């Protein structure tokens, strides 16, 4: 038998396969993000990006820095578990620049008293609830209650 000659079909196909697989592997090294597999099958950089987002709610400790009087008053009454921003709204922008009037939270809360205290059968029994109709026909809850110290009369 003579020298084995590789059939031309096979030669061409092998070359094509090598070219295709080769370009795929090259593309893979180029196009995989650099921080991939840092912690697992994802971009490690994503953790940093997600942690770098803007903060909107400042958190109760931030309010204490300037408003310690209200803070101490709140801590003595039954509203001590409330966060300032739960009623007054997001305050990080205010905390960053207290002089900026545009981002200063309003004194009146962004959620009214009835949001939490209106009677609702689904609410747990330990929670203080009133039926506004029978409780007080006046204008504002603050006529009889001080929000930071609810049992105090203004």
């Amino acid at each position: 038998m003579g020298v084995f000659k590789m059939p031309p079909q096979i030669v061409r196909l092998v070359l094509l396969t090598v070219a295709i697989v080769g370009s795929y592997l090259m593309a893979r090294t180029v196009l995989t993000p650099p921080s991939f597999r840092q912690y697992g099958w994802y971009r490690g950089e994503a953790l940093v990006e997600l942690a770098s987002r803007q903060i909107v709610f400042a958190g109760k400790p931030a309010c204490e820095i300037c408003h310690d009087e209200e803070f101490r008053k709140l801590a003595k009454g039954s509203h001590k578990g409330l966060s300032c921003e739960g009623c007054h709204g997001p305050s990080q922008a205010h905390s960053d620049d207290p002089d900026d009037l545009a981002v200063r939270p309003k004194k009146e809360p962004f959620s009214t008293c009835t949001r939490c205290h209106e009677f609702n059968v689904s609410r747990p029994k330990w929670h203080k609830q009133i039926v506004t109709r029978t409780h007080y026909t006046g204008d504002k809850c603050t006529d009889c209650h001080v929000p930071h110290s609810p049992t105090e009369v203004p």
Partner: protein
Amino acid sequence: MKSEISRRDILGGLGAVMAGLATLPLARTAKAAVQKLAVSANAPKGYDPTQHRWVMGIDINRCIGCGICVEACKTENHVPMGRNYFRTWIERYIITKPKPGTGAARGEVLVESPDGGMHGFSDLPVPAADVLHSFFVPKLCNLCEHSPCVQVCPVGATFDAPDGAVLIDPEYCIGCGFCIQACPYGCRFLNPFTRTAEKCTLCYHRITRGLKPACVEVCPTQARIFGDLKNAPPEDPIRQFYQDNRVQALKPFLGTDPRLFYAGMDKEVR
């Protein structure tokens, strides 16, 4: 077909290509370094995700259904305001009294979540006298130990972070929606603006700076308890929560092993 390209030409061409390729790793490292600089300007310094294990607990006995947490979450995370985009939401369960003489233990069960509970819950769909039990259940990502959502992501855009949060990389997500289908708890959705999947991140940008997630921050009754199980002493609220309550998880038969535990849950909650 006689080829007029000589062997030398081919080798020369190949050599040029190889040289070009050799510069690629350098270029990639340079690009990565520049990107890192741009992002890390605002990043929390010195935060090591392997040194924390964040978790949340829900006390159903304490939830009053005010919905302030849902609003705060939407505000903090710029979630689209539509009716079907929620990272967290509140469900109300109403279990009615059984009809007299039927011999049933309980009556009908009604579940509702108007606008995700964002504006609270007002009218009762049944007369108050018919109600046997009623309660609110806050829902969010269940922080599964064996997250099915992570398992099915085809590209590695959603993942279990080492510190316990299950996160989505919005720069890498292709928006196929497989993770949304795979989540048994319905906590994922497709953001119509970014066209990527989105879900509760435990306010990752807050917890990495020592703050609490927005929903935990604003909850007036401490129905949501948040903590770092790797660094929590016995007096920590999360340890107290596990100590004081017998807890349940949602859909345990699916094997997802949720780390979000509910205290005071009823058998009707799905």
